[in-house]
């Protein structure tokens, strides 16, 4: 059995990917990425597209957008709306979680 320890990269704000990386991972054309940038879903740093840098979480967002578009047959505005609503649900859930545990009897330390 193949057993070795591998280390991955956390897709956070500390790692960066180029436009080419995003296209390769998502299997997309760069025009598709341009549209996501235009719609305000992805926020690359850098002026020219050759210098664009996308954070790790942007890479994850782009992949999610790609899957939603492909699997649910959505247009890009639909994908953007779904992403925004998912983000809102996520933040409401986390707030709800914090509130719910505030009202529970305090656990013994």
């Amino acid at each position, binding site marked *: 059995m*193949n057993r070795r320890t591998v280390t991955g990269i956390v897709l956070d704000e500390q790692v960066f990917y180029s436009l080419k990386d995003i296209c390769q991972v998502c299997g997309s054309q760069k025009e598709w990425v341009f549209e996501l940038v235009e719609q305000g879903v992805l926020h690359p740093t850098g002026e020219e597209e050759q210098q664009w840098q996308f954070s*790790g979480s942007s890479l994850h967002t782009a992949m999610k957008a790609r899957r939603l578009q492909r699997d649910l047959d959505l247009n890009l505005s639909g994908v953007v709306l779904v992403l925004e609503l998912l983000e809102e649900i996520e933040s409401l859930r986390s707030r709800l979680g914090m509130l719910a545990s505030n009202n529970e009897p305090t656990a013994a*330390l």
Partner: protein
Amino acid sequence: MRYKDYYKIMGLARDASQDDIKKAYRQLARRYHPDVSDKPDAERLFKDLGEAYAVLKDPEKRAAYDELGTSWKAGQEFRPPPDWDAGFEFSGRGFDAGGAEAFSDFFEGLFGGGVGRGFTGGRARFDAQGQDHHAKVLVNLEDAYHGATRSISLRTPEVDSGGHVITRERQLNIKIPKGVRKGQRIRLTGQGSPGIGNGRAGDLYLDVDFEPHPFYRVDGKDVYLDVPLTPWEAALGATIEVPTPGGRVNLAIPAGTRDGKKFRLKNRGIPGNKAGHVYVIARLTLPPADNESAKHLYQKMRDQMPYNPRKHLEG
């Protein structure tokens, strides 16, 4: 291999029209999509749905599947009858470059595993990137402070020397880096399915989730902790010892601390480039008046401490 009831998976009768099938797929795809659904087994449901749809939407595959008859039960041990597909031509047989997930043994037994049967003729060289894999990994708060190693098992379809697709189970030890946060993704390049031909291997993506902790709550890189106080600690002030995931610390409670007051322990949250904080929330508790001397003390307070907490409700 086990028989799969594609009609049941899609919630359809066997005489459903092609239109019904399309409609059912769209509806269920929205419900089970792993990026949208909060069902814990969404990934599996969505995969089954995709497989069922791949068969039922294609009139040729559907006819071949229907030919197996109606006496099979889902999950029943299944072997395709010899030459059962002799009369059918599958135009869609072969590797679907559209990014379809690996299908079940049942599907592959019937329609071929994509690579194996479709491209053994050696006519064209065929390169494709291996599939990406997604998995969840559960860590606990202490792992985020210190880092850890997790072992996960993955089922990967691979092509053997005879060109057949086999599913191989492999174990992978994965380093969970210090500072990892709930909801983050870890990308392991090249740890997905191997590529076909000269295609590069797919990647493995891990979704990090935290095991619930008995007393810490985690929000991003911050950690919250409710700390019960006695009325005299809150009223008179005290120094108390509180736990944090990084070790116990002494916390000065100022006199007059009210219920719900938040104390920030700077940079004692989840470590990282910018470390999170620990927030201690004061929770006032009431000692029970369950014996004579406790009752006596409460009576003494009642008689000697003029205090009206309902002043603002008075007309």
